[in-house]
Protein backbone atom coordinates (compact mmCIF):
# COMPACT_ATOMS: atom_id res chain seq x y z
CA UNK A 1 0.00 0.00 0.00
CA UNK A 2 1.17 3.49 -0.67
CA UNK A 3 -0.64 5.33 2.08
CA UNK A 4 1.52 8.04 3.61
CA UNK A 5 3.21 7.03 6.83
CA UNK A 6 1.58 8.83 9.71
CA UNK A 7 3.75 10.64 12.20
CA UNK A 8 2.62 8.35 15.00
CA UNK A 9 4.40 5.45 13.30
CA UNK A 10 7.73 7.04 14.21
CA UNK A 11 7.01 7.57 17.88
CA UNK A 12 6.94 4.72 20.38
CA UNK A 13 3.59 3.60 21.81
CA UNK A 14 4.50 4.84 25.28
CA UNK A 15 5.27 8.30 23.88
CA UNK A 16 1.92 8.30 22.09
CA UNK A 17 0.13 7.42 25.31
CA UNK A 18 1.99 10.16 27.14
CA UNK A 19 1.09 12.71 24.48
CA UNK A 20 -2.57 11.68 24.63
CA UNK A 21 -2.50 11.89 28.41
CA UNK A 22 -1.11 15.41 28.29
CA UNK A 23 -4.03 16.43 26.05
CA UNK A 24 -6.64 14.82 28.28
CA UNK A 25 -8.31 17.37 30.54
CA UNK A 26 -9.35 14.81 33.17
CA UNK A 27 -5.83 13.45 33.45
CA UNK A 28 -4.33 16.94 33.69
CA UNK A 29 -6.74 18.15 36.36
CA UNK A 30 -6.62 14.89 38.30
CA UNK A 31 -2.84 14.64 38.22
CA UNK A 32 -2.45 18.28 39.23
CA UNK A 33 -4.73 17.98 42.29
CA UNK A 34 -3.40 14.57 43.34
CA UNK A 35 0.23 15.68 43.12
CA UNK A 36 -0.57 18.92 44.92
CA UNK A 37 -2.17 16.98 47.79
CA UNK A 38 0.75 14.49 47.87
CA UNK A 39 3.15 17.46 48.02
CA UNK A 40 1.14 19.03 50.85
CA UNK A 41 1.09 15.73 52.73
CA UNK A 42 4.85 15.17 52.42
CA UNK A 43 5.80 18.69 53.46
CA UNK A 44 3.04 19.05 56.05
CA UNK A 45 5.39 20.06 58.90
CA UNK A 46 6.76 22.92 56.78
CA UNK A 47 3.43 24.03 55.32
CA UNK A 48 1.20 23.88 58.38
CA UNK A 49 1.13 27.29 60.12
CA UNK A 50 0.39 25.75 63.54
CA UNK A 51 0.73 22.53 65.50
CA UNK A 52 -2.40 20.53 64.53
CA UNK A 53 -2.70 19.16 68.07
CA UNK A 54 -2.25 22.43 69.98
CA UNK A 55 -5.47 23.45 71.74
CA UNK A 56 -6.03 27.09 72.63
CA UNK A 57 -9.47 27.16 74.23
CA UNK A 58 -9.56 30.94 74.31
CA UNK A 59 -9.36 30.86 70.50
CA UNK A 60 -12.00 28.27 69.72
CA UNK A 61 -14.43 28.37 66.77
CA UNK A 62 -12.88 31.30 64.94
CA UNK A 63 -14.50 31.42 61.45
CA UNK A 64 -12.39 31.40 58.26
CA UNK A 65 -11.05 34.77 57.07
CA UNK A 66 -13.71 35.29 54.37
CA UNK A 67 -16.44 35.44 57.03
CA UNK A 68 -17.76 38.77 58.19
CA UNK A 69 -16.94 38.35 61.85
CA UNK A 70 -14.77 40.36 64.27
CA UNK A 71 -13.10 37.12 65.38
CA UNK A 72 -11.49 36.26 62.04
CA UNK A 73 -7.73 36.50 61.86
CA UNK A 74 -5.11 35.80 59.17
CA UNK A 75 -3.28 33.78 61.78
CA UNK A 76 -6.00 31.11 61.31
CA UNK A 77 -6.91 31.34 57.62
CA UNK A 78 -9.47 28.51 57.81
CA UNK A 79 -10.41 29.29 61.40
CA UNK A 80 -10.20 27.01 64.44
CA UNK A 81 -12.26 24.05 65.64
CA UNK A 82 -14.21 23.53 68.88
CA UNK A 83 -10.95 22.99 70.80
CA UNK A 84 -9.20 26.00 69.32
CA UNK A 85 -6.98 23.94 67.01
CA UNK A 86 -5.93 25.54 63.72
CA UNK A 87 -8.24 24.13 61.03
CA UNK A 88 -5.82 24.58 58.12
CA UNK A 89 -3.07 22.71 59.96
CA UNK A 90 -5.43 19.86 60.79
CA UNK A 91 -6.56 19.77 57.17
CA UNK A 92 -2.94 19.58 55.98
CA UNK A 93 -2.04 16.77 58.38
CA UNK A 94 -5.32 15.04 57.54
CA UNK A 95 -4.12 14.70 53.93
CA UNK A 96 -1.29 12.48 55.23
CA UNK A 97 -3.72 10.09 56.91
CA UNK A 98 -6.08 9.89 53.93
CA UNK A 99 -3.28 9.26 51.45
CA UNK A 100 -1.45 6.81 53.68
CA UNK A 101 -4.55 4.71 54.38
CA UNK A 102 -5.71 4.92 50.78
CA UNK A 103 -2.34 3.91 49.37
CA UNK A 104 -1.59 1.11 51.86
CA UNK A 105 -5.06 -0.44 51.67
CA UNK A 106 -4.88 -0.23 47.87
CA UNK A 107 -1.48 -2.02 47.86
CA UNK A 108 -2.75 -4.86 50.08
CA UNK A 109 -5.94 -5.32 48.08
CA UNK A 110 -3.99 -4.95 44.82
CA UNK A 111 -1.63 -7.80 45.71
CA UNK A 112 -4.48 -10.08 46.82
CA UNK A 113 -6.80 -9.22 43.94
CA UNK A 114 -4.12 -9.39 41.25
CA UNK A 115 -2.81 -12.74 42.47
CA UNK A 116 -6.31 -14.22 42.50
CA UNK A 117 -7.34 -12.62 39.21
CA UNK A 118 -4.21 -13.58 37.27
CA UNK A 119 -4.31 -17.18 38.55
CA UNK A 120 -8.00 -17.50 37.68
CA UNK A 121 -7.51 -15.99 34.24
CA UNK A 122 -4.33 -17.88 33.35
CA UNK A 123 -5.04 -21.36 34.70
CA UNK A 124 -8.80 -21.37 34.09
CA UNK A 125 -10.80 -24.52 34.76
CA UNK A 126 -11.05 -25.58 38.37
CA UNK A 127 -8.76 -22.79 39.66
CA UNK A 128 -11.03 -20.29 37.95
CA UNK A 129 -14.13 -21.85 39.51
CA UNK A 130 -12.67 -21.77 43.02
CA UNK A 131 -11.46 -18.17 42.70
CA UNK A 132 -14.78 -17.09 41.23
CA UNK A 133 -16.45 -18.61 44.24
CA UNK A 134 -14.14 -16.70 46.59
CA UNK A 135 -14.95 -13.45 44.75
CA UNK A 136 -18.70 -14.12 44.94
CA UNK A 137 -18.44 -14.82 48.65
CA UNK A 138 -16.51 -11.64 49.28
CA UNK A 139 -19.03 -9.57 47.25
CA UNK A 140 -21.94 -10.88 49.27
CA UNK A 141 -20.56 -9.50 52.54
CA UNK A 142 -21.45 -5.83 53.22
CA UNK A 143 -18.11 -3.96 53.28
CA UNK A 144 -18.96 -1.06 55.60
CA UNK A 145 -20.72 -3.27 58.11
CA UNK A 146 -18.03 -5.95 58.23
CA UNK A 147 -15.28 -3.32 58.42
CA UNK A 148 -17.05 -1.57 61.31
CA UNK A 149 -17.69 -4.82 63.17
CA UNK A 150 -14.13 -6.11 62.78
CA UNK A 151 -12.55 -2.76 63.67
CA UNK A 152 -14.73 -2.50 66.76
CA UNK A 153 -13.76 -6.03 67.84
CA UNK A 154 -10.03 -5.58 67.18
CA UNK A 155 -9.85 -2.04 68.53
CA UNK A 156 -9.31 0.78 66.08
CA UNK A 157 -5.84 1.87 65.09
CA UNK A 158 -4.32 2.98 61.80
CA UNK A 159 -2.84 -0.50 61.21
CA UNK A 160 -6.13 -2.28 61.89
CA UNK A 161 -8.06 0.07 59.59
CA UNK A 162 -5.52 -0.35 56.77
CA UNK A 163 -5.52 -4.16 57.01
CA UNK A 164 -9.28 -4.51 57.35
CA UNK A 165 -9.87 -2.30 54.30
CA UNK A 166 -7.09 -3.96 52.33
CA UNK A 167 -8.48 -7.42 53.07
CA UNK A 168 -11.99 -6.35 52.03
CA UNK A 169 -11.74 -4.33 48.82
CA UNK A 170 -9.73 -6.60 46.48
CA UNK A 171 -12.82 -7.78 44.57
CA UNK A 172 -12.63 -5.30 41.68
CA UNK A 173 -8.90 -6.02 41.22
CA UNK A 174 -9.65 -9.75 41.01
CA UNK A 175 -12.54 -9.34 38.56
CA UNK A 176 -10.71 -6.98 36.19
CA UNK A 177 -7.32 -8.72 36.32
CA UNK A 178 -9.03 -12.04 35.62
CA UNK A 179 -10.67 -10.85 32.42
CA UNK A 180 -7.54 -8.93 31.36
CA UNK A 181 -5.42 -12.06 31.86
CA UNK A 182 -7.91 -14.13 29.88
CA UNK A 183 -7.50 -11.71 26.97
CA UNK A 184 -3.69 -11.68 27.11
CA UNK A 185 -3.50 -15.45 27.59
CA UNK A 186 -4.97 -16.08 24.15
CA UNK A 187 -2.41 -13.89 22.36
CA UNK A 188 0.40 -15.28 20.21
CA UNK A 189 3.35 -14.16 22.32
CA UNK A 190 2.08 -16.17 25.29
CA UNK A 191 1.65 -19.23 23.09
CA UNK A 192 5.16 -18.78 21.70
CA UNK A 193 6.62 -18.43 25.19
CA UNK A 194 4.86 -21.66 26.12
CA UNK A 195 6.21 -23.33 22.98
CA UNK A 196 9.73 -22.15 23.84
CA UNK A 197 9.40 -23.96 27.16
CA UNK A 198 9.27 -20.96 29.46
CA UNK A 199 8.32 -21.77 33.04
CA UNK A 200 4.85 -20.77 34.18
CA UNK A 201 6.38 -18.28 36.58
CA UNK A 202 8.33 -16.63 33.79
CA UNK A 203 5.27 -16.45 31.55
CA UNK A 204 3.21 -14.88 34.34
CA UNK A 205 5.81 -12.32 35.37
CA UNK A 206 7.43 -11.50 32.01
CA UNK A 207 4.64 -12.00 29.47
CA UNK A 208 1.33 -11.55 31.29
CA UNK A 209 1.86 -9.03 34.12
CA UNK A 210 3.51 -6.25 32.08
CA UNK A 211 0.65 -6.43 29.59
CA UNK A 212 -2.09 -5.99 32.16
CA UNK A 213 -0.28 -3.25 34.06
CA UNK A 214 -2.49 -0.52 32.58
CA UNK A 215 -5.61 -2.23 33.95
CA UNK A 216 -3.88 -2.49 37.32
CA UNK A 217 -3.14 1.23 37.39
CA UNK A 218 -6.74 2.14 36.55
CA UNK A 219 -8.21 -0.10 39.27
CA UNK A 220 -5.50 1.00 41.71
CA UNK A 221 -6.58 4.63 41.43
CA UNK A 222 -10.28 3.77 41.79
CA UNK A 223 -9.66 1.51 44.79
CA UNK A 224 -7.45 4.09 46.44
CA UNK A 225 -10.34 6.54 46.22
CA UNK A 226 -12.66 3.82 47.52
CA UNK A 227 -10.39 3.14 50.52
CA UNK A 228 -10.12 6.85 51.33
CA UNK A 229 -13.93 7.18 51.27
CA UNK A 230 -14.31 4.12 53.49
CA UNK A 231 -11.73 5.41 55.98
CA UNK A 232 -13.57 8.72 56.12
CA UNK A 233 -16.88 6.93 56.72
CA UNK A 234 -15.31 4.74 59.41
CA UNK A 235 -13.72 7.73 61.13
CA UNK A 236 -17.00 9.60 60.81
CA UNK A 237 -18.76 6.79 62.70
CA UNK A 238 -16.04 6.90 65.36
CA UNK A 239 -14.39 3.60 64.42
CA UNK A 240 -11.56 4.72 62.19
CA UNK A 241 -8.81 7.17 63.01
CA UNK A 242 -9.03 8.06 66.70
CA UNK A 243 -8.86 11.57 68.17
CA UNK A 244 -6.76 13.63 68.52
CA UNK A 245 -5.28 12.50 65.17
CA UNK A 246 -6.55 14.65 62.30
CA UNK A 247 -8.53 12.78 59.65
CA UNK A 248 -10.95 14.49 57.28
CA UNK A 249 -13.72 12.06 58.16
CA UNK A 250 -13.09 12.56 61.87
CA UNK A 251 -13.05 16.36 61.45
CA UNK A 252 -16.55 16.17 59.91
CA UNK A 253 -17.66 13.88 62.71
CA UNK A 254 -16.32 16.22 65.42
CA UNK A 255 -18.05 19.18 63.79
CA UNK A 256 -21.38 17.36 63.40
CA UNK A 257 -22.91 18.78 66.56
CA UNK A 258 -21.84 22.32 65.68
CA UNK A 259 -22.68 22.32 61.99
CA UNK A 260 -26.04 24.06 62.46
CA UNK A 261 -24.25 27.13 63.79
CA UNK A 262 -20.96 26.84 61.92
CA UNK A 263 -21.60 25.06 58.61
CA UNK A 264 -18.06 25.78 57.38
CA UNK A 265 -16.77 23.24 59.93
CA UNK A 266 -18.10 20.40 57.80
CA UNK A 267 -17.87 22.23 54.46
CA UNK A 268 -14.07 22.56 54.58
CA UNK A 269 -12.97 18.95 55.28
CA UNK A 270 -15.85 17.71 53.08
CA UNK A 271 -14.64 19.78 50.15
CA UNK A 272 -11.08 18.53 50.65
CA UNK A 273 -12.30 14.93 50.63
CA UNK A 274 -14.51 15.55 47.60
CA UNK A 275 -11.67 17.19 45.65
CA UNK A 276 -9.21 14.39 46.40
CA UNK A 277 -11.66 11.63 45.42
CA UNK A 278 -12.76 13.55 42.31
CA UNK A 279 -9.14 14.06 41.24
CA UNK A 280 -8.16 10.42 41.80
CA UNK A 281 -11.24 9.21 39.90
CA UNK A 282 -10.65 11.60 36.99
CA UNK A 283 -7.03 10.48 36.82
CA UNK A 284 -8.07 6.82 36.80
CA UNK A 285 -10.83 7.35 34.19
CA UNK A 286 -8.40 9.37 32.09
CA UNK A 287 -5.68 6.71 32.21
CA UNK A 288 -8.28 4.17 31.10
CA UNK A 289 -9.43 6.40 28.24
CA UNK A 290 -5.86 6.77 27.05
CA UNK A 291 -4.53 3.22 27.51
CA UNK A 292 -7.59 1.00 27.11
CA UNK A 293 -10.56 2.95 25.75
CA UNK A 294 -12.41 -0.27 24.88
CA UNK A 295 -13.04 -0.94 28.58
CA UNK A 296 -15.12 2.14 29.19
CA UNK A 297 -18.38 1.43 31.08
Amino acid at each position, binding site marked *: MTTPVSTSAHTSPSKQVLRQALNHRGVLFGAFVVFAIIFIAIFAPMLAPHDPYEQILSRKLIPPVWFDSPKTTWDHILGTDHLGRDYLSRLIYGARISLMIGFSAMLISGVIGTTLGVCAGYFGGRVDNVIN*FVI*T*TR*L*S*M*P*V*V*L*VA*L*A*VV*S*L*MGSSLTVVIWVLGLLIWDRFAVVMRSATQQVRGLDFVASAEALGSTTRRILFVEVLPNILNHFIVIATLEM*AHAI*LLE*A*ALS*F*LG*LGVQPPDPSW*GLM*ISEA*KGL*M*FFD*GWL*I*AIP*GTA*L*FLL*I*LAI*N*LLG*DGIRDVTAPEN*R*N
Partner: protein
Amino acid sequence: MIAFFIKRLVTALLVVLTVSAMTFSMTFLTGDPAIAVAGENATQADIVRIREYYGYDRPIPVQFMSWLGRAAQGDFGQSLYLNQPVSIEIFARLKTTMTLGLSALIFALVLAIPLGVVAAIRPNSLLDRFALTVAVVGQAMPSFWFALTMMLWFGINWRILPVSGTDTWAHFVMPSIALGYFITPGVMRLTRAGMLEVLRSDYIRTARAKGASGFSILFKHALRNAIIPVVSLAAVQFGFMLGGSIVIETIFAVNGLGFLAWESIQRADLPMMQAIVLVLSVFYIMLTFLADVLNAWLDPRIRIS
Protein backbone atom coordinates in the same frame (compact mmCIF):
# COMPACT_ATOMS: atom_id res chain seq x y z
CA MET B 1 -32.52 -23.83 31.93
CA ILE B 2 -33.12 -26.31 34.77
CA ALA B 3 -29.44 -27.34 34.77
CA PHE B 4 -28.44 -23.68 34.94
CA PHE B 5 -30.92 -23.07 37.74
CA ILE B 6 -29.66 -25.99 39.84
CA LYS B 7 -26.00 -25.14 39.27
CA ARG B 8 -26.60 -21.54 40.27
CA LEU B 9 -28.65 -22.59 43.32
CA VAL B 10 -25.91 -24.93 44.59
CA THR B 11 -23.35 -22.13 44.25
CA ALA B 12 -25.62 -19.74 46.13
CA LEU B 13 -26.08 -22.23 48.96
CA LEU B 14 -22.30 -22.82 49.18
CA VAL B 15 -21.75 -19.05 49.35
CA VAL B 16 -24.30 -18.82 52.16
CA LEU B 17 -22.43 -21.57 54.03
CA THR B 18 -19.05 -19.85 53.59
CA VAL B 19 -20.41 -16.47 54.62
CA SER B 20 -21.98 -18.08 57.70
CA ALA B 21 -18.64 -19.61 58.66
CA MET B 22 -16.90 -16.25 58.29
CA THR B 23 -19.60 -14.46 60.27
CA PHE B 24 -19.41 -17.09 62.98
CA SER B 25 -15.62 -16.77 63.19
CA MET B 26 -16.08 -13.13 64.28
CA THR B 27 -16.79 -14.59 67.72
CA PHE B 28 -13.15 -15.61 68.06
CA LEU B 29 -11.62 -12.47 66.58
CA THR B 30 -10.80 -11.10 70.01
CA GLY B 31 -9.47 -14.39 71.35
CA ASP B 32 -11.63 -15.79 74.14
CA PRO B 33 -15.27 -14.71 73.65
CA ALA B 34 -16.13 -15.50 77.28
CA ILE B 35 -13.69 -12.85 78.53
CA ALA B 36 -15.11 -10.32 76.05
CA VAL B 37 -18.69 -11.03 77.13
CA ALA B 38 -17.83 -10.95 80.85
CA GLY B 39 -16.42 -7.45 80.65
CA GLU B 40 -13.57 -5.81 82.49
CA ASN B 41 -14.49 -6.34 86.12
CA ALA B 42 -15.38 -10.04 85.89
CA THR B 43 -13.90 -12.64 88.20
CA GLN B 44 -12.47 -15.94 86.99
CA ALA B 45 -15.63 -17.71 88.25
CA ASP B 46 -17.83 -15.37 86.16
CA ILE B 47 -15.81 -16.15 83.05
CA VAL B 48 -16.08 -19.90 83.63
CA ARG B 49 -19.83 -19.60 84.15
CA ILE B 50 -20.29 -17.53 80.99
CA ARG B 51 -18.13 -19.96 79.02
CA GLU B 52 -20.42 -22.83 80.04
CA TYR B 53 -23.64 -20.85 79.67
CA TYR B 54 -22.93 -19.81 76.09
CA GLY B 55 -21.27 -23.12 75.25
CA TYR B 56 -17.88 -21.60 74.40
CA ASP B 57 -16.21 -24.63 76.02
CA ARG B 58 -17.36 -26.97 73.25
CA PRO B 59 -15.21 -27.74 70.16
CA ILE B 60 -15.47 -24.96 67.57
CA PRO B 61 -16.99 -27.12 64.75
CA VAL B 62 -19.70 -28.27 67.18
CA GLN B 63 -20.40 -24.66 68.16
CA PHE B 64 -20.58 -23.65 64.51
CA MET B 65 -22.99 -26.42 63.56
CA SER B 66 -25.32 -25.65 66.44
CA TRP B 67 -25.17 -21.90 65.68
CA LEU B 68 -25.84 -22.53 61.98
CA GLY B 69 -28.64 -24.99 62.69
CA ARG B 70 -30.42 -22.50 64.92
CA ALA B 71 -29.76 -19.58 62.55
CA ALA B 72 -31.36 -21.57 59.69
CA GLN B 73 -34.51 -21.69 61.79
CA GLY B 74 -34.38 -17.95 62.40
CA ASP B 75 -32.91 -18.21 65.92
CA PHE B 76 -29.78 -16.09 66.25
CA GLY B 77 -29.52 -16.41 70.03
CA GLN B 78 -30.02 -13.86 72.79
CA SER B 79 -28.93 -10.27 72.44
CA LEU B 80 -26.21 -9.50 74.98
CA TYR B 81 -27.65 -6.05 75.59
CA LEU B 82 -31.41 -6.07 74.98
CA ASN B 83 -32.01 -9.35 76.84
CA GLN B 84 -34.37 -10.69 74.19
CA PRO B 85 -33.95 -12.89 71.11
CA VAL B 86 -31.90 -11.20 68.39
CA SER B 87 -34.35 -12.22 65.66
CA ILE B 88 -37.29 -10.26 67.15
CA GLU B 89 -35.37 -7.00 67.04
CA ILE B 90 -33.99 -7.70 63.56
CA PHE B 91 -37.33 -8.42 61.94
CA ALA B 92 -38.84 -5.40 63.66
CA ARG B 93 -36.18 -3.19 62.05
CA LEU B 94 -35.97 -4.92 58.68
CA LYS B 95 -39.10 -3.21 57.38
CA THR B 96 -37.69 0.28 57.89
CA THR B 97 -34.46 -0.57 56.09
CA MET B 98 -36.37 -2.18 53.22
CA THR B 99 -38.58 0.92 52.89
CA LEU B 100 -35.50 3.13 52.85
CA GLY B 101 -33.65 0.86 50.41
CA LEU B 102 -36.59 0.63 48.00
CA SER B 103 -37.31 4.35 47.98
CA ALA B 104 -33.58 5.02 47.46
CA LEU B 105 -33.58 2.56 44.56
CA ILE B 106 -36.65 4.18 43.00
CA PHE B 107 -35.08 7.62 43.35
CA ALA B 108 -31.88 6.39 41.72
CA LEU B 109 -33.65 4.68 38.81
CA VAL B 110 -35.99 7.60 38.16
CA LEU B 111 -33.01 9.95 38.00
CA ALA B 112 -30.50 7.69 36.25
CA ILE B 113 -32.47 5.94 33.51
CA PRO B 114 -33.91 9.08 31.81
CA LEU B 115 -30.50 10.77 32.06
CA GLY B 116 -28.85 7.72 30.53
CA VAL B 117 -31.40 7.55 27.71
CA VAL B 118 -31.11 11.25 26.92
CA ALA B 119 -27.32 11.02 26.99
CA ALA B 120 -27.43 8.11 24.55
CA ILE B 121 -29.80 9.85 22.09
CA ARG B 122 -27.46 12.79 21.74
CA PRO B 123 -23.95 11.60 22.53
CA ASN B 124 -21.48 14.40 23.32
CA SER B 125 -24.28 16.98 23.49
CA LEU B 126 -24.62 19.43 26.34
CA LEU B 127 -27.08 17.09 28.09
CA ASP B 128 -24.69 14.16 27.76
CA ARG B 129 -21.92 16.26 29.30
CA PHE B 130 -24.27 17.29 32.10
CA ALA B 131 -25.19 13.65 32.78
CA LEU B 132 -21.51 12.71 32.82
CA THR B 133 -20.80 15.51 35.28
CA VAL B 134 -23.58 14.24 37.55
CA ALA B 135 -21.99 10.79 37.40
CA VAL B 136 -18.44 11.98 38.12
CA VAL B 137 -19.53 14.26 40.95
CA GLY B 138 -21.78 11.57 42.42
CA GLN B 139 -18.95 9.08 42.60
CA ALA B 140 -16.66 11.52 44.39
CA MET B 141 -19.13 12.77 46.99
CA PRO B 142 -18.75 11.14 50.41
CA SER B 143 -22.30 9.99 51.24
CA PHE B 144 -22.19 11.11 54.88
CA TRP B 145 -21.01 14.58 53.91
CA PHE B 146 -23.69 14.84 51.25
CA ALA B 147 -26.27 13.77 53.84
CA LEU B 148 -25.09 16.37 56.39
CA THR B 149 -25.03 19.12 53.77
CA MET B 150 -28.58 18.30 52.66
CA MET B 151 -29.66 18.27 56.30
CA LEU B 152 -28.14 21.71 56.80
CA TRP B 153 -29.93 23.27 53.81
CA PHE B 154 -33.28 21.48 53.60
CA GLY B 155 -33.70 20.76 57.30
CA ILE B 156 -32.22 23.74 59.09
CA ASN B 157 -31.86 26.71 56.74
CA TRP B 158 -35.04 26.27 54.69
CA ARG B 159 -36.96 24.01 57.08
CA ILE B 160 -38.62 22.04 54.29
CA LEU B 161 -37.89 18.51 55.48
CA PRO B 162 -37.57 16.81 58.87
CA VAL B 163 -33.98 15.90 59.79
CA SER B 164 -34.41 12.75 61.84
CA GLY B 165 -36.79 9.93 62.59
CA THR B 166 -39.19 7.83 60.49
CA ASP B 167 -42.64 9.15 61.40
CA THR B 168 -43.89 10.20 57.94
CA TRP B 169 -42.91 9.70 54.31
CA ALA B 170 -41.23 13.11 54.42
CA HIS B 171 -38.72 11.68 56.88
CA PHE B 172 -37.59 9.25 54.20
CA VAL B 173 -36.94 11.86 51.49
CA MET B 174 -33.44 12.98 52.49
CA PRO B 175 -32.18 9.54 53.58
CA SER B 176 -33.41 8.04 50.29
CA ILE B 177 -31.69 10.71 48.21
CA ALA B 178 -28.46 10.39 50.21
CA LEU B 179 -28.49 6.61 49.86
CA GLY B 180 -29.71 6.46 46.27
CA TYR B 181 -27.54 9.21 44.81
CA PHE B 182 -24.45 7.07 45.22
CA ILE B 183 -25.68 4.39 42.80
CA THR B 184 -27.03 6.73 40.11
CA PRO B 185 -23.66 7.05 38.27
CA GLY B 186 -23.37 3.30 37.69
CA VAL B 187 -26.98 2.90 36.53
CA MET B 188 -26.73 5.95 34.31
CA ARG B 189 -23.52 4.83 32.61
CA LEU B 190 -24.90 1.35 32.00
CA THR B 191 -28.17 2.69 30.57
CA ARG B 192 -26.24 5.04 28.30
CA ALA B 193 -23.89 2.31 27.09
CA GLY B 194 -26.74 -0.14 26.56
CA MET B 195 -28.83 2.40 24.65
CA LEU B 196 -25.88 3.46 22.47
CA GLU B 197 -25.27 -0.16 21.51
CA VAL B 198 -28.92 -0.98 20.88
CA LEU B 199 -29.57 2.19 18.85
CA ARG B 200 -26.81 1.11 16.45
CA SER B 201 -28.32 -2.33 15.92
CA ASP B 202 -30.01 -3.61 12.77
CA TYR B 203 -33.48 -4.06 14.20
CA ILE B 204 -33.63 -0.40 15.21
CA ARG B 205 -32.73 0.51 11.63
CA THR B 206 -35.51 -1.84 10.48
CA ALA B 207 -37.98 -0.19 12.83
CA ARG B 208 -36.96 3.22 11.50
CA ALA B 209 -37.27 2.00 7.92
CA LYS B 210 -40.78 0.68 8.42
CA GLY B 211 -41.71 4.12 9.73
CA ALA B 212 -42.14 3.57 13.45
CA SER B 213 -42.37 6.80 15.42
CA GLY B 214 -39.34 8.02 17.33
CA PHE B 215 -41.09 7.50 20.63
CA SER B 216 -42.05 3.93 19.82
CA ILE B 217 -38.53 3.10 18.65
CA LEU B 218 -36.97 4.49 21.80
CA PHE B 219 -39.25 2.95 24.38
CA LYS B 220 -40.75 -0.12 22.71
CA HIS B 221 -37.73 -1.37 20.81
CA ALA B 222 -34.58 0.10 22.30
CA LEU B 223 -35.05 0.68 26.02
CA ARG B 224 -36.60 -2.72 26.64
CA ASN B 225 -33.45 -4.42 25.42
CA ALA B 226 -31.00 -1.93 26.86
CA ILE B 227 -32.56 -2.23 30.30
CA ILE B 228 -31.76 -5.93 30.82
CA PRO B 229 -28.25 -5.43 32.24
CA VAL B 230 -29.59 -2.51 34.30
CA VAL B 231 -31.99 -4.88 36.06
CA SER B 232 -29.19 -7.07 37.37
CA LEU B 233 -27.06 -4.04 38.27
CA ALA B 234 -30.02 -2.60 40.17
CA ALA B 235 -30.42 -5.86 42.09
CA VAL B 236 -26.75 -5.93 43.03
CA GLN B 237 -26.75 -2.24 43.98
CA PHE B 238 -29.88 -2.70 46.06
CA GLY B 239 -28.00 -5.31 48.10
CA PHE B 240 -25.01 -2.98 48.46
CA MET B 241 -27.30 -0.15 49.56
CA LEU B 242 -28.83 -2.17 52.36
CA GLY B 243 -25.32 -2.96 53.61
CA GLY B 244 -24.20 0.63 53.23
CA SER B 245 -27.29 2.19 54.77
CA ILE B 246 -25.61 2.03 58.19
CA VAL B 247 -23.99 5.46 57.59
CA ILE B 248 -27.17 7.13 56.34
CA GLU B 249 -29.41 5.55 58.99
CA THR B 250 -27.05 6.71 61.73
CA ILE B 251 -27.06 10.28 60.45
CA PHE B 252 -30.83 10.60 60.04
CA ALA B 253 -31.69 8.38 63.03
CA VAL B 254 -33.66 6.06 60.75
CA ASN B 255 -34.56 3.20 63.01
CA GLY B 256 -33.58 0.37 60.66
CA LEU B 257 -31.10 -2.49 60.52
CA GLY B 258 -28.12 -0.22 59.85
CA PHE B 259 -28.90 1.89 62.88
CA LEU B 260 -29.35 -1.28 64.92
CA ALA B 261 -25.96 -2.49 63.64
CA TRP B 262 -24.34 0.74 64.76
CA GLU B 263 -26.01 0.58 68.16
CA SER B 264 -24.93 -3.05 68.55
CA ILE B 265 -21.35 -2.16 67.66
CA GLN B 266 -21.40 0.53 70.36
CA ARG B 267 -22.77 -1.98 72.89
CA ALA B 268 -20.40 -4.79 71.79
CA ASP B 269 -23.51 -6.92 71.19
CA LEU B 270 -21.82 -9.62 69.13
CA PRO B 271 -24.77 -11.98 68.45
CA MET B 272 -26.75 -9.03 67.09
CA MET B 273 -23.86 -7.88 64.87
CA GLN B 274 -23.35 -11.40 63.50
CA ALA B 275 -27.06 -11.81 62.78
CA ILE B 276 -27.24 -8.50 60.90
CA VAL B 277 -24.17 -9.30 58.79
CA LEU B 278 -25.59 -12.73 58.00
CA VAL B 279 -29.11 -11.49 57.19
CA LEU B 280 -27.81 -8.77 54.85
CA SER B 281 -25.37 -11.17 53.15
CA VAL B 282 -28.04 -13.82 52.61
CA PHE B 283 -30.38 -11.17 51.27
CA TYR B 284 -27.70 -10.03 48.81
CA ILE B 285 -27.04 -13.64 47.72
CA MET B 286 -30.77 -14.13 47.12
CA LEU B 287 -30.98 -10.92 45.08
CA THR B 288 -28.06 -11.83 42.83
CA PHE B 289 -29.41 -15.35 42.44
CA LEU B 290 -32.80 -14.04 41.35
CA ALA B 291 -31.18 -11.52 39.01
CA ASP B 292 -29.05 -14.24 37.40
CA VAL B 293 -32.04 -16.52 36.92
CA LEU B 294 -34.10 -13.65 35.50
CA ASN B 295 -31.30 -12.74 33.12
CA ALA B 296 -30.87 -16.31 31.94
CA TRP B 297 -34.58 -16.49 31.34
CA LEU B 298 -34.59 -13.22 29.37
CA ASP B 299 -31.40 -13.91 27.44
CA PRO B 300 -30.89 -17.51 26.27
CA ARG B 301 -27.23 -16.85 25.42
CA ILE B 302 -26.35 -16.67 29.14
CA ARG B 303 -27.69 -20.06 30.12
CA ILE B 304 -25.95 -21.85 27.26
CA SER B 305 -22.44 -20.54 27.85
